[in-house]
């Protein structure tokens, strides 16, 4: 590992953390964790953006071309952060949480368990060359090509590639995939001084740590006490499929899960605490999703719809629901229709066929085997421990808290909608084969999993830390202390 590589990491982390601090001026618990968590993710994406903009002609030393811009952006964000922190009201000096001895031991054990697994999966990343199929077949193709060539070349469809025989064009099965992660890999490869797959894949480990830190920080800012926040960090960090995506680094799904989770948390914080800068953060995290993976567009639009729905007055919400239902009914009745969606393009529906540009043509029919596949994925296989078994009982138990909090209700509706989309995709369309073969069902469910855990965590807040009227509702619930 070279000094340049370490500097590249320092720069990404610092600039991202400053940007995060600039967008969260309020002094709330978990501020540093939030800044670091969001910071590493935003910093790496910032590095990708500046590499794409400034290093196309010289990818071998890409990081040297992009680093000054990233440093400048980080410095500017740092100045804004300092200014805003200075102007922000001082934090209330609350009495420290008194934690019983056994809880301290339990928290210590959970943190030790996370550190242990972090060391194992980190070592896996640093030892093994790029392993899983799409990591080398799809996600690393552009970055490896650009880096080894020493300059950028466009990737095009095979037809264009054959037609333009003399032009320096490239192609491949994943030519249309977004290039953001590719540029990030170029940044780290150039800093490492060579195409060293282990060092190019290390961001996945750091992102996992950032995911845990960012969620911890935001849960604390949203009123979860430290012990419960650590419990839910353990729950999130112990999920086997999430750890597998780090150990077998190279897929974009962990990035989608992290950024979607971050966006939902920032949105919740804006709703509950009224911090406008968190809305900006939520929109930034959401806007990045389509740049990471094509399916990210679906989550981006879902988030936008939820945010838009949330700002409507109650009367207009019902109208919006009625309009959406009428449009859907019209589409079903007419049978054949096409609609232009912002950022997606024309969605065409025919008799039992839907053609969505992001996903492709899907014929609509019931797939029983796929339904069984989805159920097995969530409840029977070892991907999620007991997470999906716990969701319904916890929601039922904390139903009053959920009903009393508009922010949590909206979050629940968003996640229910996202889950519904996945169920429709896997059970009613040709994508059923991905559920029957288990090739995509778990990875797509993973996209919303951190956000689902956030919802559960926030339902488990102590009554005193809930905004009214959820506080009164929670006080009426029986309270066996889960922490």
């Amino acid at each position: 590992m070279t000094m340049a590589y370490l500097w590249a990491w320092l720069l990404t982390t610092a600039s991202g953390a400053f940007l995060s601090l600039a967008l969260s001026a309020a002094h709330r618990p978990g501020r540093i964790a939030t800044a670091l968590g969001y910071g590493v993710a935003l910093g790496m994406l910032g590095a990708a953006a500046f590499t794409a903009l400034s290093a196309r002609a010289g990818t071998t030393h890409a990081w040297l071309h992009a680093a000054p811009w990233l440093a400048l952006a980080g410095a500017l964000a740092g100045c804004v952060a300092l200014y805003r922190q200075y102007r922000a009201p001082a934090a209330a000096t609350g009495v420290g949480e008194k934690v019983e001895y056994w809880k301290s031991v339990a928290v210590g054990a959970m943190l030790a368990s996370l550190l242990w697994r972090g060391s194992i999966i980190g070592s896996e990343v640093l030892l093994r060359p790029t392993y899983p199929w799409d990591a080398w077949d799809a996600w690393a193709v552009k970055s490896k090509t650009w880096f080894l060539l020493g300059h950028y070349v466009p990737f095009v469809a095979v037809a264009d590639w054959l037609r333009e025989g003399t032009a320096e064009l490239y192609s491949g099965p994943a030519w249309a995939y977004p290039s953001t992660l590719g540029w990030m890999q170029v940044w780290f490869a150039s800093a490492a001084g060579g195409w060293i797959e282990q060092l190019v894949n290390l961001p996945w480990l750091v992102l996992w740590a950032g995911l845990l830190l960012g969620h911890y920080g935001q849960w604390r800012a949203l009123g979860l006490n430290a012990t419960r926040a650590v419990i839910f960090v353990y729950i999130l960090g112990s999920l086997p499929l999430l750890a597998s995506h780090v150990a077998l680094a190279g897929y974009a799904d962990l990035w989608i899960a992290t950024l979607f989770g971050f966006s939902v948390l920032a949105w919740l914080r804006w709703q509950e605490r009224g911090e406008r800068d968190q809305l900006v953060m939520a929109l930034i995290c959401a806007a990045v999703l389509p740049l990471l993976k094509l399916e990210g567009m679906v989550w981006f639009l879902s988030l936008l719809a939820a945010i838009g729905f949330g700002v409507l007055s109650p009367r207009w919400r019902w109208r919006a629901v009625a309009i959406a239902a009428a449009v859907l009914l019209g589409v079903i009745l007419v049978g054949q229709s096409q609609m232009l969606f912002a950022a997606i393009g024309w969605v065409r529906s025919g008799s039992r066929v839907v053609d969505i540009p992001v996903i492709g043509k899907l014929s609509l029919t019931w797939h029983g085997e796929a339904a069984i596949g989805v159920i097995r994925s969530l409840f029977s296989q070892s991907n999620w421990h007991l997470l999906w078994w716990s969701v319904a009982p916890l929601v039922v138990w904390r139903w009053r808290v959920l009903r009393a909090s508009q922010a949590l209700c909206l979050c629940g509706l968003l996640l229910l909608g996202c889950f519904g989309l996945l169920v429709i995709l896997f059970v009613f369309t040709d994508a059923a084969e991905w559920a029957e073969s288990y090739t995509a069902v778990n990875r797509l469910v993973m996209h919303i999993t951190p956000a689902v855990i956030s919802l559960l965590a926030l339902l488990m807040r102590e009554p005193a830390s809930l905004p009214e009227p959820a506080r009164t509702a929670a006080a009426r619930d029986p309270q066996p202390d889960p922490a």
Partner: protein
Amino acid sequence: MRRRALAVIAVIAVWLLVLGTAARIPWSAPLFSRDQLTLKGQDFRPVMGAGVEDGSALGVGAIASDGNAMQSIPLERIRASDFPLLTFRFEDFPRTLELLLVFRRADTPDDVQTLALPWPGDGVVTVDLHAATPAWRGEITELGFAEYATPQLVPPSIAFRPFRLVQARLDSSAWNALPRLLRHAWFGYQPWSLASINVVGVSTDPNASLPVTLVIGALLSLVVCALLLRWSRAQWLRAALVVGALAWIALDLRWLGDLSSKHQLTESIYAGKSWQERARLQPDEDIAGFAQLARQQLADVRQGQRVLVASDSTYMMLRLIYFLLPLNAVPLDAAIATAPAHDWPDDTVIVLCASKHWHYDEAASVLRSEARSVAVTPMFAGGSLAVYRVRGAGR
């Protein structure tokens, strides 16, 4: 006090019921197996690779040239239904190898049936063959073990290390096998696979699901305790939280153990090596070798020149393209499906790797695959690799 004692007994009964069902042990089975057939390691003969008698065991010291080893023993037509349980023991079995059970049935003497077995390590492993494969039926005439490098994970050149086959035993069903059956069904080591990014574990795992078993056992235990001990709602909730947390921790410890075992394999292959050595140690070292050879043959291609790659195996074709980067390579089938060969750029090159679908017709100087053909000039042919330059392309 009496209620508590009753609750304890009821919970034990619940878990016996749940675990027994999970292990698929018939309720009529005795505590100890009635029939046993012990096969000493020394009685197995090496079919592939080399082995020598080592006390009562068989020491396997070498693999065959194709990277496989196999040891087998003929049986006197035993009824599979009488012996559903297989217990076996190896010593020094390397983590880099995968183990298969191979057997023949009297009704299909020319067919070899196979079943993937859990990694044996140094301990005793028990498997319920009846539950694991529908092929375990009829009369068995031969039984053996086969070993090979864990596919797509371990470079075959470093996979083999000598080990000893100590003993195998076939048993009738019995309750005393319960702990061993469940231990290997739920806690046995499973190596990483290409599917691990999609599913943790094996999606076709025939064993009962541990999460489902834990949930059912926990729920039944809670209901029994709530009824017998007359719990209040708050007590029930507290107990449910505690039981849920314990179940989560149990699953997590199992996952950590598995993760740790997976990592031991990775360490045994890559630890202590430089970045370059790690890059060289590819699990598919044969494809990496083909890529190196192809690169030598394509040393004079201009930057950006089109290269089309074909292989019978999609994995091999895509992997070869990745290894060839930054050469400008695309699957041959994708190009053929897009435009006729005469529309391709005039200096297009084709690389065939382990391909039987595509073959070179020397008389006509064309590559053929079913109804498709491409006029080419051979540049290189050696072993499973061949390189051609497309002739008559117009661009």
